[in-house]
């Protein structure tokens, strides 16, 4: 069970959180202008790296706030967390 540093509450057990997959994936500015390929990229394709990964979590059973986390998918080591809307800090 991961120990996740919520930027608002501090370190808490993973069971308090819900996972949200890759961070920094934005809804297309104008979805109607996206072609089928571009749209499928948004809906179905997410980065899936082996190693450093920027991902989103929400502190579901805490402050209920979403945030970003940098975690290594091969070691589960967490480098840090940062607010939604910020660029990668770690």
């Amino acid at each position, binding site marked *: *069970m*991961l120990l996740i540093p919520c930027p608002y509450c501090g370190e808490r057990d*993973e*069971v308090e959180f*819900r*996972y949200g*997959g*890759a961070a920094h994936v934005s809804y297309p500015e104008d979805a109607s202008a996206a072609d*089928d*390929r571009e*749209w*499928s*990229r948004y*809906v*179905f*394709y*997410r980065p*899936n*790296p*082996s190693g450093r*990964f920027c*991902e989103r979590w929400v502190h579901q059973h805490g402050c209920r706030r979403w945030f970003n986390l940098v*975690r290594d*998918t*091969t*070691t*589960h080591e967490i480098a840090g967390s940062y607010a939604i809307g910020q660029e990668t800090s770690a």
Partner: protein
Amino acid sequence: MAESHPDLLWSSPEPRGSYDVVIVGGGGHGLFTAYYLAANHGITNVAVLERGWLGGGNAVRNTTVIRSNYLWDESAAIYEHSLKLWEGLAAELDYDILFDQRGVLNLAHNLGDAREGVRRVNANRLNGVDAEWLDADGVRAFCPVVNTDPGIRYPVLGATLQRRGGIARHDALVFAVARAAAGLGVHLIQGCEVTGIEVTDGAVRAVQTNRGRIAAGRVGLCAAGHSSVVAGLAGVELPIQSHPLQALVSELLEPVLGCVVMSNAVHVYVSQAHKGELVMGAGIDTYNSYAQRGSFHVIEHQMAAALELFPIFARAHVLRTWAGIVDVCPDASPIVGGTPVDDLFVNCGWGTGGFKATPGSGWVFAWTLAHGEPHELNRSFSLERFETGALIDEHGAAAVAH
């Protein structure tokens, strides 16, 4: 000395500089692909490149459930094809893989489960896949150790039963198919990590490995949990996420459970292996990972769930837990077919349910690599479906964890 040994499984050749087909990934799917390339299509100048040891990934980490009772026509066709291959595999490979058609129950715990179970049974029958709907009494008769007390938290309202479903011994399957492939001249190259994929003019030419460059007419990727990483070497993106999937075994026990029982609502699937241990699987860990380990609370929940359904397991011990890395597709169906790169093909996305498909997956992928285009059975399992929207969504409707 090894060459003449009566038990010889395979030898370990030095890689050649070039092959007609290079398979990346020496798990069950890769080995069966190579075997059928040689056995069905006469293509024997084939190498299987395995980073670690053959079958060292999900092939030997899974809970060995085999069934074909999927909802949608496309899924039923490919999994049923696979099940039929399973039924002839021991004879074809001349190896006792302990395939045992002891029946698979998928339990229904609420009216929605029951509705979906009936739907799937009806669809299975019309697709020529054996399927039965059992009410709670029928479940009790078929599997007396399931707790069918109507007062439990998630009472058993009924179950689908596929009698032809069952289990097999995963290690034996790997040994059997590797021996058969090697016997037909396929090169099984272990400790060979693919570090690059050469693409020129939109077509694949070769792979770079820690043991040198290996040219290839066609390349098939069978890298399961590492599919995104390997495909990325060729600049190909996949709609895949990699997650840990945990499983566990008990100590050896006297016979107590005679069939496979799966419950999506209660998050349990369990069977008792031939040797005597209970083999159980859990739901996937939610986060992306390549670490082959998951979080403890998943196991805790799984144990609590198991005891809801099987109070008699209370005193059994967990002997060993482990995790595989599963490649999960958005629609819980695999991707078997071409990529934007010519002569580069991919076989991935089997998620939590790849073991049952092992021979079928290899069979269609071998056909695809031999012909340069998909077989009818895997035509729908294309990458393009994510653009057209023609998904094969086995999440909700099949209502099973794997």
